[in-house]
């Protein structure tokens, strides 16, 4: 009988301890970020959808239309084609579309791009009314992009290299 | 609880081939090839030893026999070509002609069922393989010994069409109820 009473008393005591914890949190400041008014800065390595890099010297893309990213992509989201123009060494990029509805942000395309012509963008609030809104024409968006001088280091060998 | 003890117990009941796979390289300690009718005996040996069932799955070896046959013929052709010089060089060459597989019944491709067992205490993962003819893939169920195998067998039936004789409720588990296709077969065209 005694341990039954002890259990009842320790039980009610545990209830009051629980209440004490929640009331303490009631008076503590709020933790949440009020989204539309405040936004969180994205980490430098955040993987948004991929975008073409504007080379600071030429102001053009570095893409040599080799199609490595197209082959590496598991879900065939990237379509790249270019054309030969006389007087220009190598192919010129004419179309670079990304079907973001199927992209799984795995990074195999960025990793397989030898001239480092594509990188991850930082925007995350992508709202669209139709599926077609998610077929991005990266070549067209290239003009609006700021020239990216320092590329985000990825796949670097060790921490020292990441420093510079 | 070491693998050697298990190995004898399995060979005692006349299992076809028990090989000690090198764990670090392959990931499992014992690789047991079993004739379909001996499967239940082998599994009950493991059950007695306190093994638990990890997974049951299937492998579709379509086109394997054809590849083997082509390989055999290529080897035979290579020997026939190499034989005259060897004879000239070595004088008496051992009769190297390997008789081609007997023409009678061309061995049919196999549907292999792979059972994985592991033990809570000792580090000994046992893989039991049973090869079934593709035309009539049937094998006895072990859900009576391991109730956990019930779902694994239903899933393997879904993907490969292997019929587990004596299974209490062989209804598609992951595929829709009326699914009659088996997606993991190599000749499956969606």
């Amino acid at each position, binding site marked *: 009988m005694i341990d039954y009473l002890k259990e*009842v008393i320790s039980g009610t005591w545990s209830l009051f301890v*629980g209440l004490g914890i*929640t*009331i303490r*949190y*009631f008076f*503590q400041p*709020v*933790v949440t970020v009020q989204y539309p008014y405040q936004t969180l800065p994205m980490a430098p390595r955040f993987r948004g959808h991929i975008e073409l890099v504007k080379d600071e010297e030429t102001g053009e893309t570095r893409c040599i239309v080799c199609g490595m990213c197209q082959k590496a992509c598991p879900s065939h989201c990237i379509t790249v084609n270019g054309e030969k123009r006389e007087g220009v060494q190598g192919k010129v990029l004419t179309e670079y579309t990304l079907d973001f509805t199927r992209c799984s942000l795995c990074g195999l395309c960025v990793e397989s791009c030898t001239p480092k012509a594509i990188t991850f963008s930082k925007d995350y609030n992508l709202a669209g009314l139709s599926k077609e809104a998610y077929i991005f024409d990266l070549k067209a968006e290239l003009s609006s992009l700021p020239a990216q001088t320092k590329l985000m280091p990825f796949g670097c060998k060790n921490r020292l290299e990441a420093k510079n | 609880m070491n693998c050697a003890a298990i190995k004898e117990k399995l060979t005692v009941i006349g299992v076809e081939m028990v090989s000690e796979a090198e764990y670090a390289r392959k990931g499992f300690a014992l690789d047991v090839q079993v004739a379909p009718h001996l499967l239940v005996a082998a599994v009950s040996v493991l059950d007695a030893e306190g093994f638990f069932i990890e997974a049951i799955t299937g492998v579709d070896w379509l086109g394997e026999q054809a590849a083997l046959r082509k390989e055999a013929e290529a080897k035979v052709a290579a020997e026939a070509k190499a034989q005259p010089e060897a004879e000239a060089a070595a004088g008496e060459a051992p009769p190297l002609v390997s008789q081609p597989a007997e023409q009678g019944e061309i061995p049919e491709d196999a549907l292999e069922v792979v059972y994985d067992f592991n033990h809570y205490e000792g580090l000994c993962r046992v893989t039991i393989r049973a090869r079934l003819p593709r035309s009539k893939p049937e094998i006895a169920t072990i859900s009576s010994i391991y109730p956990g195998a019930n779902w694994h067998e239903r899933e393997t039936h879904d993907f490969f069409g292997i019929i587990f004789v004596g299974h209490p409720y062989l209804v598609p588990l992951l595929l829709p109820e009326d699914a009659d296709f088996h997606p993991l077969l190599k000749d499956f065209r969606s």
Partner: protein
Amino acid sequence: MTLDPEIIRLLAFLVGVIAFASFNAAYLVWLERKEAAHIQRRIGPKEVGPFGLLQPLVDGIKLMTKQLIVPAGVDPVLFKIAPILVMVPAIMSFVTIPFSETLVARNLDLGLLVISAFASVNFLGLLLGAWGSRNKYAVISAGRAFSQNVAYEIPMLVIVVTLVMVSGTMNLTEIVGLQMGGFWHWNILNLAASPLMPVAFLIFFVCMLAETNRAPFDMSEAESELVAGAFTEYSGMGFGVFFMGEYANIVIGACVATILFLGGWHSPFPDTIPFFGASSVIWFLLKMYFIIFTVIWIRWTFPRTTFYGLLNLSWKILIPISFVNLILTSAMLKVF
């Protein structure tokens, strides 16, 4: 037919009571969402109006404009009566509650009996609604509500009987009158009557929680098990009335607890102190809202009890202690 002032006063009070009940029902929702938010360290509604104060208004309009769906195969009569059966008893019991010396609709001699009678009617509405909507989840939750209500009616009434014995009357105004003076005159600290009085208040509070199906006893509308319990099939204002009924019942429970134990409209300080001592409606509302704050606070802290745990708690702990309290009080009254 000449309208004598009594009827006008009564009509005015009825309108005031219904306004009070619906205002409370709406703004308790707001208080609950705000309090739950801050306990969980987030903001809660703040878009509509300052601090989200117009949120209940907007919710009300949303509920009213929603289509009242009466699913097929439903017993139409029961389905429509149920929400009303939950709401009306709650408002009826407001009639006898004395908010202050003069502010009472109808000062009945058996006020306490009226409230206890109506308290057991509201769960009948829940039962009819669940049975009428022919939904398996609703029927399970109705079964639970039924046995839970029976289990918690008994200790509550035993405590009420002990208090009636202590104060000798069932008229709520007189019960409060007895608790004049400072807070040591309140029944909760009235150790002369019975040393177990604070425990009696605790039991009464727990029974009030269980009566109104509030966590941790919300077995009947357990979100994670029975989806929405008795009112799964209701939409629009049907659900709205159920919701208001539940909150009105909480307010009733809080009012009765303040009247019986915390000395109604009397201030905790003796009357000698000029400003604070005067007893007025403010004190009554303060105490009531403090109890409602605690009810919400408990909901957002504890998990739900098991169903048999809930019944064991009542039959094995609450009822024995309340009987002991009853006998103790009668013995103390007899002796002193």
